[in-house]
């Protein structure tokens, strides 16, 4: 975990080494509102045409990331709060969440291989990251019951993959969540300042009422 944190810290320092241009124009909207809107975009599937046209893709996204959250939580629950997984309903809930994410992971892998457009832009890192997550889910489903008396291997495999992920993630595309706030912030700031985001609704007032001052 410390390794992951240190690498992320270096990554953010690296990002901040690059310049950022000062905005010199009068605003037509609010940069702050734009940033908030842009950041919340992930929770607004109606906001993007690409998602509206493919709601199934958004549902897959939710399932996949809920599964990730469940699998990561399990890596803490097993050693620090093992009692929770003594409750059968909790185990089933976690297994279902992670199992659904595993199925989505497999669907995403099939899509990556079969869709010519996605295949063309895919690198080994894209495939490895996805396969690694699928393995992580599979190991998680087996390890979550936490019944080491039945054998230690499920736990060893699950935590071995976890350890590998902690090292691999910051160097792979899995680390995209680190960049999400930055891309969304920059885009939201520009678009908010210009009054493009939040997207305008039909209104009676117009820019003619604004003094731009």
């Amino acid at each position: 975990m410390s390794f992951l944190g240190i690498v992320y810290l270096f990554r953010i320092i690296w990002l901040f080494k690059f310049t950022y241009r000062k905005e010199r124009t009068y605003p037509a909207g609010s940069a702050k509102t734009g940033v908030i809107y842009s950041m919340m975009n992930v929770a607004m599937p109606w906001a993007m045409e690409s998602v509206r046209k493919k709601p199934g893709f958004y549902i897959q996204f939710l399932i996949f990331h809920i599964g990730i959250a469940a699998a990561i939580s399990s890596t803490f629950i097993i050693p620090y709060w093992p009692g929770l997984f003594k409750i059968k309903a909790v185990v089933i809930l976690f297994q279902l969440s992670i199992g659904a994410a595993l199925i989505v992971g497999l669907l995403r892998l099939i899509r990556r291989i079969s869709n010519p457009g996605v295949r063309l832009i895919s690198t080994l890192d894209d495939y490895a990251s996805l396969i690694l997550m699928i393995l992580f889910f599979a190991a998680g489903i087996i390890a979550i019951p936490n019944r080491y008396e039945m054998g230690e291997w499920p736990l060893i495999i699950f935590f071995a993959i976890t350890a590998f992920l902690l090292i691999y993630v910051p160097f792979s595309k899995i680390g995209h969540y680190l960049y999400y706030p930055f891309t969304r912030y920059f885009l939201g700031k520009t678009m908010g300042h210009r009054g493009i985001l939040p997207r305008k609704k039909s209104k009676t007032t117009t820019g003619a009422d604004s003094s731009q001052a």
Partner: protein
Amino acid sequence: MSDDKVDTSKVVNLPLETKTQKKAKEDQLRCVAQGQLKLYDPKANNVQKFIDLLSQRINRSIVSSMVACVHCGMCADSCHYALARPSDPTMTPAYKADQIRRIFKRHMDWTGRLIPWWVEAHSPANDEELNRLKNIVFGTCSQCRRCTLNCPMGVDTATLIRMTRGILTELGIVPEGVFNVSRDQWETGNQMAVKEEDYLETLEWMKEEVQEELGIPEVDIPVDKKDCDFMYTINPREIKFDPRSIANAAKIFHIAGESWTMPKWGWDQTNFGLYSGDDKLGAYVARNLYEAAQDLRAKRIVISECGHGYRSTRWEGYNWADYDQKIPTESVVITLIRYIKEGRIKVDPSLNPEPVTFHDSCNIARSGDLVEEPRWILKRVCSDFREMHPNRTENFCCTGGSGLLSMAEYRPLRLEVARIKAEQLKATGAKIVCTICHNCVDGLNDLIRHYRLEMKVVQVLDLVANALILPGKKHSFRK
């Protein structure tokens, strides 16, 4: 609709043409001698120069767009190139962005520097590869920013494309059309090389036209008049091909009792720096205009209908020129709304009875701030306004954006992918398509001819001028 498919491999392998570059060198043009406009040098280490320029020009927001792409491919559904050519994966915006992203990864990103093959990081081997990159960034993307707004991660592919164009421009690895227009704007201060006498003569001619039309000899198109309410700036296309738009503006300004002027220098609100990615050209053109307004002590700058001109003058130009905005800078659309709201002009929508639809310019809808404003006017000057779908920030490009109209070599591909726009236009059933962009006028006219659509392209000023009611008269004074 046409089914002819352009061979993508031919497009990306189009050779670099340097005839006009050689001519510019022979002619010892000032902009070449002063190093403002760069020429291609086959003996130079262009690959290394490219890499050096990349590291100099990349900024924080571009870096985040470089590293954040997860290769989900969602952008393909938002790009008119990819939608029109679903069987061609090289049209996916992420693929186009990856062509620069892999160079960034190879030289600036950790994983790409250590294990390049793992993330397909790559350094261009020679000028041929840079030329291929030129054909991708200039020929297969209109920088419409539709993919940007549809990217779940917020990756701004259009900005990556523009930055790459700018680096290639610095190396002289550009389409001839881009070189020529940049040359003209550097040399003459306007992108169509309009001479000062031609500019002034056209204004004089239009003034006389309006005087005759209105029967009012006091109508004026003032030039370099100080302390006016606004300085009006135009697209050189208006001088060369569409002077009626200046006459329409003059007519409306006169009826509204406006105090306005046009500058003798710094009147071109268009800016090829936006298309070529050359921030220095962008700064030069924008500064000319801002300084003209300052010298004339104008209280605001009004920009005639032009998509990239509006974006460049209202938004990007101040930043390129490191020039703090001091006075309001607005589109003429906003000026017209003010006139209508204040009762300074009266309009009759029955004078525009034909069905009208509106095409949102990419540079205004996705990189500017005017979406509802033109509609506000159209609903008051047309009796049958109908929306195009999708619209506003989701509208499709006219396909002539980002300077593509000046790059003849990419026209077959541009017109092929214009099928998406043509279908959009056809579905409205409108006879007139209105837009607030001169570039879109040409782009739309080109595809309307190609796809044989029965439509006419106009601008908001045309429709407002047509719907005008003269004080004391029932109907407008249209010809």
